[in-house]
C-alpha cells in the first residue's frame, strides 16, 4: 500500500485504461499517460470524444451504463481502481479533487458558503479542531482569491457572481489538499475577463501547492496560456500528446491541425475550416484509424492499421501513420472579401430603452446596412440579447424607435404585417429548445411556407429539400424528429427555418455557443456564404474570435450602453475604449502575444 515502490515525481500514472459500455463497446481504450507534480495538462476533444469519461474515470467513476474494465490508475502511488467503500470515498476529494462544469448547479443552493466548505473538510477529516478547520478554510479562500471574512462565509451561492461561484468550487477542491485535481470545462459558463482571472488563479494554486491538474476542455485557445502539455483525444483514444509550444507551432496529427484551423482567432482573420463528416459514436468506429474517413492525408493502410501512440523527438507523441513533420505555416491566409455593403440602411435603431425590473438598455442607437454583418458584442448582462429580441419582435417593455427599410417597425411581432414577419428572422441560442420535439423537420419547415406563401404539398416538399441542401443537410433529414439530430444539425435546421421564410435580415443570438468548435466553424462558414448571397446578418456573441471570423462591423455593449462601434478591423485591432481593450486583451488566442 505504500508509495515506496516508485520513486519518481509522477503524481498520476494511467496505463491502458479501458472503459466499456454494455456489449464490449469501448468508449475509451489504450489510454496511458502520466502527470508530474505541479503540472497542468489540457485534455482536448470534441463532444463525444470520451474526455469527460476519462476525467471521471480518474475518480474511479463511470457514468451509468459504462464500466471501467481494464487498466491501472495510480495517484501518488495509490491504485485508485482497486479502492472500495470508505477508502474510495476518502480518495475522491481527498486524493483527487474535481471541479464541475457549471458552478451554478454544482453548488447546493440551500447551503451557505461556510457550511459547504466546513462540510467538505469534515467529511474527510472529522477530527479536525474548530480552530484548525477555520484556519484551513480561511487560507484556502485567500488562495483562490476570495474574501475570508465571516460575512462572505454566510452568503448563499446565488448571491455570488459566476466567477466567484467557480472560485468557491476551486476552494472546495483545494481545501482538502488533493494531489491531483480534475477540472471539467470549468470556465465555459464564464465571461472572458472572469475566465482569464480564474485561470490565472488556478495556475498559481497548482504551481504553489505542487498539485497536478487535468484540465478538460473543447477549446484549444483557452488552454493556450494555462497548460504545460496538451493531450488531444479523438473517439476514445489519445491521438496526440505534446508540449504546449510544440502543439501550437507544429501539430503532427491531422486531427489536431483540423481542430486548430476550426478555431476562430481574434488575432487574425482566417477562413475557418470545418472538419467534414462526424466523429464516430462508440461502437461505430471504423477499422484502422478512427479519423481516417475525415482525414485529408488518408492512405490505403489507414483503413487497416490502427496507429498507436508513438514518441517523436521532443516528447511529442502521435498516433498517426502519416503525421505532419513540418511546423504550421505562419502568416495571414487570404480571406475572400465579402461583397461591399451598400450604403442603403436596412435597419435603424434609435434611442432604444428596455427595462424589466431594472433598466437593461440605455439609449442604444445603431444602423445596419443592407448586406453587411454587424456583430453585437458584450458579456453576460450587457443587454445584447434584449436588443436582439427587440429587433426580432420578441421584446417587452421596449421604448424608442425602430425603422426597417425606412419605415417604422413595431416592437412586437403581432403588430407587424406578414411581409415584415418573414423578412426579419431570428435564430435562437439553444438548438435543443428551438425545434418542436413532436414535429418532424419537414413539418417544422413547411409550416412557414403554408403560412406566408400558401405553398403546400409537393411544392412545399421540394422547397424544404432545397433549403436543407442550402444548409448542407441531406434530404432524408426531413422525415426525422429533432431528437435524432446532433446539436449542429439542429442549429442548421433552425437556420433553414429562418431561410425558408426568405428573410432579408437574420438575427442570430449566440447561435454557436452550444456547439463544438468544428461545428461552429461550419455554421459560421454557412452564414458567411449566405451573407455573400445578399443576406444581412446581425450576429450577437460574446466571443471576439467569432466576431473576427464573420463580422464586417462591431458594436460593443457594456451594461446596456454602446461603448464602441466601428469596423471589425478597427475595433479588434486598435480598440479605443478601455472596456473594449480589456475584452480584447483577455480573449484567448492561439497566436503568441
Amino acid at each position: 500500500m505504500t508509495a515506496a515502490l516508485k520513486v519518481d515525481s509522477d503524481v498520476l500514472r494511467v496505463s491502458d485504461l479501458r472503459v466499456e459500455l454494455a456489449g464490449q463497446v469501448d468508449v475509451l481504450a489504450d489510454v496511458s499517460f502520466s502527470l508530474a507534480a505541479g503540472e497542468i495538462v489540457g485534455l482536448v476533444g470534441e463532444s463525444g470524444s470520451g474526455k469527460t469519461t476519462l476525467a471521471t474515470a480518474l475518480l474511479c467513476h463511470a457514468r451509468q451504463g459504462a464500466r471501467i474494465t481494464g487498466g491501472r490508475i495510480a495517484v501518488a502511488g495509490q491504485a485508485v481502481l482497486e479502492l472500495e467503500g470508505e477508502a474510495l470515498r476518502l480518495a475522491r476529494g481527498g486524493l483527487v479533487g474535481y471541479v464541475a462544469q457549471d458552478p451554478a448547479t454544482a453548488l447546493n443552493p440551500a447551503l451557505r458558503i461556510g457550511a459547504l466548505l466546513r462540510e467538505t473538510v469534515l467529511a474527510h477529516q472529522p477530527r479536525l479542531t474548530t480552530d484548525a478547520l477555520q484556519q484551513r478554510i480561511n487560507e484556502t479562500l485567500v488562495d483562490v482569491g476570495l474574501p475570508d471574512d465571516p460575512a462572505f462565509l454566510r452568503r448563499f451561492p446565488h448571491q455570488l457572481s459566476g466567477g466567484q461561484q467557480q472560485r468557491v468550487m476551486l476552494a472546495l477542491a483545494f481545501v482538502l489538499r488533493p494531489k491531483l485535481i480534475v477540472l471539467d470545462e470549468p470556465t465555459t459558463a464564464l465571461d472572458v475577463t472572469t475566465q482569464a482571472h480564474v485561470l490565472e488563479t488556478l495556475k498559481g494554486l497548482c504551481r504553489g501547492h505542487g498539485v497536478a491538474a487535468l484540465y478538460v476542455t473543447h477549446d484549444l485557445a483557452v488552454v493556450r496560456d494555462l497548460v504545460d502539455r496538451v493531450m488531444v483525444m479523438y473517439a476514445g483514444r489519445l491521438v496526440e500528446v505534446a508540449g504546449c509550444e510544440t502543439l501550437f507551432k507544429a501539430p503532427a496529427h491531422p486531427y489536431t491541425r483540423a481542430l486548430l484551423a476550426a478555431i476562430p482567432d481574434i488575432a487574425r482573420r482566417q477562413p475557418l475550416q470545418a472538419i467534414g463528416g462526424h466523429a464516430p459514436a462508440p461502437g461505430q468506429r471504423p477499422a484502422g484509424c478512427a479519423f481516417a474517413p475525415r482525414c485529408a492525408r488518408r492512405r490505403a493502410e489507414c483503413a487497416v492499421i490502427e496507429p498507436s501512440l508513438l514518441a517523436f523527438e521532443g516528447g511529442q507523441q502521435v498516433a498517426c501513420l502519416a503525421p505532419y513533420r513540418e511546423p504550421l505555416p505562419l502568416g495571414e491566409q487570404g480571406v475572400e472579401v465579402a461583397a461591399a455593403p451598400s450604403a442603403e440602411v436596412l435597419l435603424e435603431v434609435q434611442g432604444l430603452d428596455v427595462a424589466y425590473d431594472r433598466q437593461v438598455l440605455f439609449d442604444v442607437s445603431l444602423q445596419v446596412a443592407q448586406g453587411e454583418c454587424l456583430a453585437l458584442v458584450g458579456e453576460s448582462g450587457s443587454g445584447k440579447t434584449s436588443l436582439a429580441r427587440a429587433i426580432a419582435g420578441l421584446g417587452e417593455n421596449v421604448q424608442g424607435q425602430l425603422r426597417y427599410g425606412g419605415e417604422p417597425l413595431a416592437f412586437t411581432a403581432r403588430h407587424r404585417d406578414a411581409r415584415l414577419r418573414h423578412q426579419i428572422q431570428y435564430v435562437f441560442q439553444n438548438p435543443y429548445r428551438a425545434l418542436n420535439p413532436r414535429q418532424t423537420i419537414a413539418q417544422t419547415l413547411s409550416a412557414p411556407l403554408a403560412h406566408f406563401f400558401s405553398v403546400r404539398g409537393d411544392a412545399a416538399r421540394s422547397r424544404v429539400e432545397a433549403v436543407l441542401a442550402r444548409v448542407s443537410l441531406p434530404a432524408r433529414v426531413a422525415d426525422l424528429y429533432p431528437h435524432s439530430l446532433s446539436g449542429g444539425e439542429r442549429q442548421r435546421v433552425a437556420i433553414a427555418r429562418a431561410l425558408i421564410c426568405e428573410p432579408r435580415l437574420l438575427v442570430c443570438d449566440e447561435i454557436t455557443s452550444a456547439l463544438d468548435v468544428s461545428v461552429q466553424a461550419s455554421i459560421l462558414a454557412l452564414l458567411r456564404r449566405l451573407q455573400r448571397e445578399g443576406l444581412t446578418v446581425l450576429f450577437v456573441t460574446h466571443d471576439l474570435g467569432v466576431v473576427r471570423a464573420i463580422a464586417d462591423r462591431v458594436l460593443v455593449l457594456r451594461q446596456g450602453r454602446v461603448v464602441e462601434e466601428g469596423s471589425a478591423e478597427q475595433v479588434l485591432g486598435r480598440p479605443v475604449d478601455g472596456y473594449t481593450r480589456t475584452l480584447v486583451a483577455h480573449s484567448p488566442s492561439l497566436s503568441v502575444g
Partner: protein
Amino acid sequence: MTETRWLADPQVRRGAVITALVMLLALLGPWLAPHAPTAMVGPVYGPPTAGAPLGHDFLGHDLWSRLLSGGVSVLWMSVAAATLALVVGGSLGLLAGFSRRRLDQAISWAADVSLAFPDLILVLLIVSMLGRAPWLIVLTVAIAFTPGVVRLARGSAVAVAGQEFVEAAQMMGYSRWRILFSEILPNILTPLLVHFGNMLTWAVGMLSGLSFLGYGVAPPAADWGLMINENQAGLLVQPWAVLAPALLIAVFAYGTNILAEGIGRVSARIGEKQP
C-alpha cells in the same frame, strides 16, 4: 409518441392486457349471461352450485349473470367522466398556461377554489340535490376531476410555452389556436394521458362508492358497486356476492393504474434521450 414504443414496455403491456380483459368481460357480459340480471332464479344467498357457479344474492338473482351485466355501467360512466374532465380541463389548462396574465389568473383561481372541496363530498352534494340520473353522475364526477387536470395541463403548458420553438411560432405570426394545439398540446400529451389513466382508477372507485352509498345506479339494475352494497348483510353466508364485484373493481383499478404508470415511465425514458 408512437404506440409501438409504449407497447414494447412489459409493464405497459401487462396493464393494457388486464384493463382490456376486464373491459371485454364487462362489454360482452350482458350477452354471455345465462339469466337476466333481474331474474330471481334461486334461493336467497344460495351457495355456488353447478348451474350457478357463484351462487345467488340477497334476492335470489344468479350472481354470475349479475356480475356479467353489472360492469357496463361502471365502465362507461368512468370512461365518460375521465374523458370529459380531460377534454375540458386540458383545454382550460392549456389556455391558462399559454395566455398567462388575467385569463390565467381567473382559470387558476377557479381551479384552486374547487380543489379545496373534497371530491366525494362535492359529488354527493350535487347528486343528493339534483338526482341520480347517470348523465348527471358522470357530469359531477367530471366536474370534481377537472381542477386537477387544469392544474396539470397549465403547469406542463407553462414549461413548454417558455421554450424557443413556441417563441419562433409567435414570431412567425401563427394564430393562437395553432400554437396551442399544434405546438404546445403534443408536448404535454403524455402527462395528460398518464393522468387520464389515474382518473379512470379514481372514477371507478368513486362510482362504486356512490353506488355503495345508494346514490349511484338505481337498485333493480345490476352494478358492481351496488352489488357490494346490496349483499353486505350476507357477507358471512355468501361472501362471493360481495367479493366477486369488489375483486373485479380492484383488478380494473390495478390494470388502469399500472398502465398509466407504465406510460409515464416509458415517456420519461424517451424524454431522457433528448438533452
